[in-house]
């Protein structure tokens, strides 16, 4: 997709790392990298805390802007337009900075064959975090979620509208 280099932070000690430990490991490596701009995505599909960037930024002592859907960077600062529950904010911050983009920022293109071949030649490095990072949360028990009731899935064979109305009538919703 265009990156010049990849760094994988991988260490057996990070197995099951929580947000606190992950932020410490990432910040340690980022400090060594000395990047001007650190970009995060929307959120992970598992834990989905959608806040790791703020912990990393605090450790790096850099400004953070999250939920950014438009981003402009000039030589020394960035301007991000972000969405909150109340509307749009435009925030300016000096570099170096941490930015978390929302998935609405763009539609990723498919990598071209040339790009895929080119990526194989790009350096990839695996590093361990420079400082030990310990989790501070524990999982005590897991249990199934309360049942949602019986879910139905149908394929439209021409009568889907009728079937939806029947379903709504059954539930006394229409």
């Amino acid at each position, binding site marked *: 997709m265009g990156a010049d280099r990849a760094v994988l932070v991988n260490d057996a000690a990070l197995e099951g790392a929580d947000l606190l430990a992950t932020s410490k490991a990432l910040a340690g490596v980022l400090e060594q990298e000395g990047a001007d701009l650190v970009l995060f995505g929307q959120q992970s599909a598992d834990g989905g805390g959608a806040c790791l960037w703020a*912990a990393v930024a605090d450790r790096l002592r850099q400004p953070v802007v999250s939920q950014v859907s438009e981003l402009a960077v000039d030589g020394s600062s960035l301007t991000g337009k972000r969405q909150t529950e109340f509307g749009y904010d435009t925030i300016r911050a000096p570099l170096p900075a941490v930015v978390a983009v929302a998935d609405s920022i763009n539609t990723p293109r498919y990598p071209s064959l040339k790009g895929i071949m080119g990526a194989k030649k790009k350096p990839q490095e695996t590093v361990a975090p420079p400082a030990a990072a310990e989790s501070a949360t524990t999982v005590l028990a897991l249990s199934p979620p309360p049942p949602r009731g019986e879910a139905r899935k149908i394929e439209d064979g021409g009568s889907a509208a009728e079937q939806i109305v029947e379903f709504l009538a059954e539930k006394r919703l229409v």
Partner: protein
Amino acid sequence: MAKTLVFLEHHEGAVSKGALGVLAKAAGLGESAGVLVGSDVRSIAEGVGGTVWVADDARLGAPLPQPRVDVLAKLVRDEGYDTVLFAQSVLAADVAAGLAARLEAGINWGLVDFDGTQGRASQLGDTVVVDVGWSSPVRIGVFRAGALDAGEGGGAPDVRDAPVDLEDFSTSAEMVEQAHAEQQGPSIEDADVIVAGGRGLGEPEKFALAEELAQALGGAVAATRAVVDAGWYPYSAQVGQTGKTVSPKLYVALGISGAIQHKVGMQGSGTIVAINKDPNAPIFEFSDLGVVGDLHEIVPKLTELVRARRS
């Protein structure tokens, strides 16, 4: 016994309902206080009840997370709070995570309950309920939106001044502009029936399909972030992580894939009906009735049938 600090997020002169719910929860767990951070916010503390720390400073006017981390971290250290609780929001999540790093405190989110030492959270896209604990001296917890009911106002609060001592990096980001949309039409938060449209509608004009069905069902129209960001529909109708959290009796999702940031805004709906042409769309995993098909064919028919039934 927990000594708990609750972040009181506020907007347009009022503390958020979610934060008041968390404050009521904290009050039942032992010693607790709220903390209000902003500029000219002292009057907002009236009616909150209990102990309220107020950090009032012109530099705290914009709703940016990092100066708030400075204020909360100092309060926790100076006053010996062992628990800091938040109600989920864009701002609260950033403050909570920044505070976790600052204090080396464990953070759990998605909480639906907390007993002073353990929490209960719904995780992995609501596929598992997790009982969570903390091993750090300070616990940070973020409650899921709408998890708790706001308590009764507690009368005159005991307002205390919180020291404001800000780091240079915390104040380096600045708010250039805030564009907060006016509410258009009735709020979707109060609607019993919601018809929501996503990218699968294909083009902005096709929101008419959602509007007609909503009208037939006596409901309101909502939208996903993707179509709001694309300018297809007004922001006030947006449901999801950075929009509104709704719990109507019926939620009809048209051409919505069901990304996690949309799901968190509507998963409390009574009955969910989804129409999507992609049989693998995640929305089918949490729909009561999932219909794989072309919404452009199904919805006009459905609207007709609903109209006929109601007339």
